[in-house]
């Protein structure tokens, strides 16, 4: 990668601003129709899935019902929930599709997630000690994090985290480590915990008590179907999200590096810390367009259906400025994530080998 001058970086930023403005100027009826259609399809899928599970006397029916429900839950979580909560659809001023009113089908309350994700993670993307999403305070995913014997078990932690991801996220939002450090009062934590319990309680009752009971003799098939659907969604979300920031090429930054960061440098950090996934339109929708993680991190509040359209422009811009644009297949990116999980479970020196050196150090 060639070294960028300060002027280059600012120019890069201005070009990105232009892309952003183009999308904003052309947002309209077509985009509104898109998100409403996704929501309608998702709800129809959910109702059909649950309906099929209620008729699941034969295994293929059970499978179809569970698959429909899992698909609905994935759409709800990713293309709809995540993106609505980012405020991507706030411009429509529809109170029913708005970041301030939306609640999603996960155990974590949307408001808590908005704080840790929209604010902390998107502002401090891949900044060590600031971006709590690095390893979710559970794992060592950057060689700069000091090693501890505890990390020896991290392949196991990650494997357990995947199916329980929504619970991990809820716990993560509690910011227990800040409580330990005394940055956060017990009172705050207890209020938050109450909100989680209230939310999680309703979620658990719905999927594991109410629907199974309603199914009468089919109690078990419905219970297991719902459990499978939730876990499938969790594993899928975990996989996609980890591919977004932790494949081997993604850069990690220190607080000193980003001091006094300009808009151009902020864009650059978002670019270098994110990785895309290649795939077709349906794949993109199923990842909530987090397959366009780079575009999402550059423009977190632009409607997700537009990422595919601007991706070639962003890519061309990176080429023009000699910047990397990290993109790969789901399989490849997942493999490198796991490689990193395994490798960093073992003690390594703080200095990364040359090819992995944080790109920003060269760029900034």
């Amino acid at each position: 990668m060639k070294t960028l001058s300060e002027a280059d970086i600012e120019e890069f930023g201005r070009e990105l601003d232009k892309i952003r403005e183009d999308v904003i100027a052309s947002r309209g009826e077509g985009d509104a129709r898109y998100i409403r259609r996704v929501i309608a399809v998702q709800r129809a899928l959910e109702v059909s899935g649950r309906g099929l599970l209620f008729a699941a006397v034969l295994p293929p029916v059970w499978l179809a019902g569970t698959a429909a429900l899992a698909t609905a839950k994935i759409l709800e979580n990713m293309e709809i929930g995540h993106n609505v909560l980012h405020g991507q659809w706030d411009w429509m001023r529809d109170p029913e599709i708005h970041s301030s009113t939306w609640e999603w089908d996960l155990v974590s309350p949307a408001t808590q997630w908005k704080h840790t994700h929209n604010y902390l993670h998107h502002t401090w993307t891949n900044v060590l000690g600031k971006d709590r999403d690095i390893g979710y305070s559970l794992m060592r995913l950057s060689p700069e994090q000091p090693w501890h014997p505890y990390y020896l078990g991290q392949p196991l932690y990650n494997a357990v985290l995947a199916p329980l991801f929504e619970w991990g996220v809820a716990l993560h939002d509690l910011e227990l480590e800040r409580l330990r450090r005394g940055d956060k009062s017990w009172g705050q934590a207890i209020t938050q915990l109450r909100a989680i319990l209230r939310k999680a309680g309703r979620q658990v009752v719905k999927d594991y008590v109410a629907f199974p009971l309603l199914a009468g003799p089919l109690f078990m098939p419905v219970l297991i179907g719902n459990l499978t659907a939730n876990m499938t969604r969790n594993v899928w979300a975990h996989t996609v999200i980890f591919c977004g920031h932790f494949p081997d090429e993604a850069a990690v930054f220190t607080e000193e590096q980003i001091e006094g960061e300009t808009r151009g440098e902020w864009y650059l950090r978002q670019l270098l810390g994110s990785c895309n996934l290649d795939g077709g339109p349906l794949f993109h929708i199923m990842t909530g367009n987090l397959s366009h993680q780079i575009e999402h991190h550059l423009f977190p509040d632009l409607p997700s259906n537009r990422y595919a359209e601007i991706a070639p422009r962003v890519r061309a811009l990176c080429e023009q400025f000699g910047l990397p644009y990290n993109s790969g297949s789901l399989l490849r990116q997942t493999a490198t994530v796991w490689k990193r999980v395994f490798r960093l479970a073992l003690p390594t020196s703080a200095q990364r080998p040359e090819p992995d050196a944080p790109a920003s150090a060269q760029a900034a």
Partner: protein
Amino acid sequence: MTALARTRIDEVALRLADTVAWLTTPLLPDDYLGLINPLWSSRKLRGRVEAVQPETNDAVSLTVRPGRGWIAHRAGQFIGVGVDVDGVRHWRTYSLSSAPECADGRVTITVKAVPGGIVSPYLVHRTKPGTVIGLTRPEGRFVLPQPVPSRLLFVTAGSGITPVMGMLRSLVWSGEMPDVILLHSAPTREEVIFGAELRRLASQVPNLRLHEHYTRSGCRLSLAQVPDLVPDWCRRGVWVCGPTAMLQEAETRWREAGIPDRLHVEHFRPAVAASTGGAGGRVRFLSSGQRADADGATPLLVVGEDAGVLMPSGCRMGICYSCTGRLRSGRVRDLRSGREYGEEGELVQTCVSAAAGPVEIEL
């Protein structure tokens, strides 16, 4: 069905919805039912446009079937109408032009396209039967008292005829037309909204007299003419709806005549003070976490909407108080008077207040 029975049914429906909500959490049953028929929602009042009837070149009447949660209106009242124009929800206020007695479960609004406007051209030129729109329940005090006075005077201009048309239709329906005089002003004869119906009524109902004034042919209706046209004007209850200047003149005249309480006016837009210039500032919407720069003349309501904040609103002209937000810091300017005010904790009507310096508001 009696009102009591209806309340009972609503109560049962609510309790049922509460139970079903355990199955739809975190959503509500409404969110699923609404996909089948948006009018079934019990949380959001909506209506479906069933007919679009041209009235003049640039005005139409929309016949709307309101969904669950609607209440009967009184002639002369207005409703809020929410439509999506280019994907963005906008709310405006429209008077009901249909008589409440017409009990087919439908109501009409009559809209004149304002050149350069967002919502009215959309409603007039682009709305088709089947369109679902947001509604708010009828409200407003521009109505006839009960019992109806024996002598009435209506003074209207342009689209200002709409609430009065609602009243006239209601009087026709009741079968007891008091002594009514209508002075109406429009650019030309063709541009008189409800022109044909008004003329027919005037020729059929002996108690109803109609004076049309066409401004384009130089026959501007001035309130100074009222004593000549209506010698007993002092003894009539009067309802006026038209441009701001006309309403202000009416207020002065009736006040000077010592009978201000005979006068009822309906404003379609706020009377903006002449000198609303002045510096704006950065506005922080605390509940939603949004920030925006505002000039000194744009209502905070519009500033917030443009920034993507879900701003509550209603009439958008300072009469209904649907749009208030609590001021945390800073001062605002009342666009109607130009007056600056604001203390911490004060409720501000965002639709008629602009920022006067940096502002923090709990919205």
